[in-house]
């Protein structure tokens, strides 16, 4: 029995979160032999994972990466100073 593509896409995603059963892995393997689309889908899922793991480093390296606003800096500084005086 060939599993439908929709089911395969969910299994491909699940394979990133849990260990698949032997049957599930076999189902994917057989399906990929006949379906390029789902094989593309798996590659793209792996790509999205790899990109997500690196996103923090890349965004930090960016010159226009978000920064604390000057108002927030003043507010936080005041807060910390107040705390310092109390303790």
């Amino acid at each position: 029995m060939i599993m439908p593509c929709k089911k395969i896409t969910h299994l491909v995603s699940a394979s990133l979160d849990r260990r698949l059963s032997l049957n599930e892995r076999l189902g994917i393997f057989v399906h990929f032999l006949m379906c390029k689309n789902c094989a593309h889908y798996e590659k793209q899922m792996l790509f999205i994972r790899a990109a997500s793991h690196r996103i923090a480093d890349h965004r930090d390296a960016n010159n226009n990466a978000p920064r604390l606003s000057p108002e927030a800096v003043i507010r936080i500084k005041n807060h910390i100073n107040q705390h310092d005086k109390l303790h």
Partner: protein
Amino acid sequence: MPQLSDPNTWLDQHGDALFRYALLRVRNTTLAEDLVQETLLAALKARARYAGEASERTWLTGILNHKIIDHFRQAHREQPFADSLPDDEDISNDLFNERGHWANPPSAWANPDQAFEQQKFWEALAECVARLPPRLAELFTLREINGMETEEICKVLNISTTNNAWVMLSRARMQLRQCLEIKWFGR
């Protein structure tokens, strides 16, 4: 053994990095600022316990990460993730026909690895994550950016079964794939 620098310099030295760390995970400027403030105050109180095993930045980031998880935990203690899996989070009906075959098949992406070299790609990815329905974005972020295990995430977000979390993660990835295809891989 590394020593902590003067706490008065922490904000200047680490404030922006901590802010970006928080913003990437909570996607809300005010909340991210508050989390940075709480982190620095907590660090001030805990500085006697700094063991010098991690760099100052790593130590502060660890505290911030606790604050972020606590924030999610509190938010979902009052408002658990619904057990339902609403249809509007599921785009598969647009992608598959009624027999579950592709109606709108994914094409191969040309040179995906080159995307990593381009700043605009990272902006596109962040935008695609931000466009996810909020709870899918939270779940995806904890799983793929924070690298937490599903069981742990279910406790933090108050999701009743790991199975539900897996279904939601699949939906999140499917939406992200679709968004990147439009925004970056240009179809």
